[in-house]
């Protein structure tokens, strides 16, 4: 049996990779994708703890899985909105380079 630690290490790695992508990539679509990776890291955590519940207490608790399902649904909606924003940004500035979209500043 794969113990909880492995799942947590996997999700930490995914979160770190996602965060790295969010912070470094210039392309807004890649940034969006990195956010998805971070979300999935969280989902893995939720599911992992849900199954860990049995190990810990001997009973089943599906709430973690339910949360993961909600999270996936919301992530889908979020991507739709995020892509729509990117589309508008592209129409307005002819670029989706996040370094160049910086007019909201001093």
């Amino acid at each position, binding site marked *: 049996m794969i113990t909880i630690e492995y799942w947590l290490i996997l999700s930490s790695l995914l979160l770190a990779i996602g*965060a790295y992508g*969010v912070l*470094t990539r210039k392309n807004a679509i890649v940034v969006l994708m990195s956010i998805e990776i971070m979300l999935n890291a969280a989902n893995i955590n939720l599911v992992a703890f849900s199954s860990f519940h049995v190990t810990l207490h001997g009973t089943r608790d599906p709430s973690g899985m339910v949360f993961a399902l909600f999270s996936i649904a919301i992530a889908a909606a979020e991507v739709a909105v995020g892509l729509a924003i990117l589309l508008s940004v592209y129409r307005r500035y002819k670029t989706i380079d996040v370094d160049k*979209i*910086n*007019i*909201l*500043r*001093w």
Partner: protein
Amino acid sequence: MNILEWAWLIPVFPFLAFILISLLPKKGLWWEDGGGYAIAGAGGALALSVWVIWEVLNGHTLTVGAPTFDWLVIAGFKITFGIWIDQLTAVMLLVVSIVGTLVVVYSGGYMHEEAERRRRYYAEIMLFISVMYGLVIASNYLEMFIFWELVGLCSYLLIGFWYERPAAASAAKRAFIVTRVGDIMFMAGIIIIFKYVGSFDFGTLFANNAAATTAAMPKDMLTLATALIFGGAIGKSAQFPLHEWLPDAMEGPTTVSALIHAATMVKAGVYLTARTYPLLIHSPESLLFVGIIGGITALLAATVALAANDIKRVLAYSTISQLGYMILGLGAGGYLVIHGGSEAGYAAATFHLMNHAFFKALLFLCAGSVIHSVGTNDMRLMGGLGRKMPITSITMLVGALAIAGIPPLSGFWSKDEVLSAVYGAGEFHFTFFILWAMGVATAFLTAFYMFRMWFLTFSGSARSEYHAHESPKIMTVPLMILTALALTSGAALFIGAGFKAFILGSLGSIPVEPETETLGEIASAVFTSPFTYLVLGLVIVGILSAYRIYYMHGFNRTIFAAGIPGKFQKALENRWYISKFYDDFALVVVYGFSKLADLFDRYVIDGVVNGVAYLGARTGGVIRKAQSGNVQRYASIVIIGIVIILFFLLYVLPGGA
């Protein structure tokens, strides 16, 4: 129904007139733009005052236990508005009601040419009369102080009646500011008393020979408080060194000078001092101070009056001088009360207050009649008016004789009483002998300058082109009434039980052993004292010298302009340089200090405020660069922040999270 309980209605009549005159549409003002309402208001107050005075004459007073109205109730104590009717109040009521009414009637002629402005004039004068009554019947110091300030306001408004004249505008401001110095002292005095005794009420403060007050206050504080309250009188009654506003106040209409600056408001200071007697007699130092200020003022103002060329200024200085007499009489009277238990000084001063109000109002209204006719105040441009204005010249002659102190006119009796009281007080403090000598000198000077004024105005030949005519009846009738009063008010000393026995009642619980002299003894005391003849002789010499110098031809007046007399005259014409001193003082010290304060404000206060703002702006300018608009930078800061927080929670804080 006790009419005294309704005495609070007295100020209500003129106040209603004030409201009506101020608010009615122009058509509703009927006679003289509100003059009709003014006469009605003053007349109503006069009628009620006379009724109240009649009751007081019959021995009824209303002091402690008078109906009051709670004005402010603050945990533990309350401030009330009440009335206080005793013999002293009655004397002031008599003065204010009679002079007030006559002046308002006289204004019907004097202010006739002012057209639309009469409405403002009548409104202000009604407000003045109303608050003056309020001051007179007030039953506690705070109430008195409120009305005290209000009469000051009315004085300011009326001095500045012709505000478009720079002289009038600045005189009004000067009067307001200079009297304010005294007002602040008055306020400080009553606050000190309140701090120790916890009450403003005359009833509480004065009861049982002011036992509660003297028990609650240390001797020094009582002296300080009474001296400060007298400071209010110095300002309001134009005593040295705050006397210079009164001559300037002559810029107002002559009726205002007669009513406010001769007969009533300036008497408020004397009234206040007399009212404070129960406290003053516990502080001989304050009384001595009162006497000295009075004596100096009397002599100083009389000397300046010698050289004044403006008819109203002569009268103004004469007013200051006579007020000094009253104050001197009160100061000396206090010593008499302390040492001899005699009311002589107090009675003399209040008697002089009453008589002076009548003859000085008369003199001012006569001067107004002259000015109305000639169109100038300058006596050098008058002369020879006696034939053209017979009524005015004769009534003014009576006024001048009264103030000079020729028997049997009113001034003779009261002046003699004041001087004999001051001489009597000399027995207890030698300073009063000096002050008595100053008073005698003042009597001589008074006779001289009054007749100088009369001769310059009415005798000889005209010194400029003018078309003088006698004033209309509405002005001469009040003159004649006042003449009758100036002739006869001295007789009050002998009417009924006599003025002295009458005024004694207002001393309340002060222990005095009234001089049990009959009226005949009073009269014989006057006519057997050598000092009476000394003063009378000096007065006659004064009148005769004025006659020789200003009436008879061939006197070379240029001798006054050269050598030592010339220097003297120059000093007098410049009012002993006191006015100039105040101007210079204001210019150098006050203006200099203001400039300093301005610089401090501009560079230090503003500097701090602007500096803080500048610092904020600059800091903002620097740190706003953090808002780069780069989303990834924000995100990295967030992540770094989370990492730091986690680090702290997990490793630094004891026990971990």
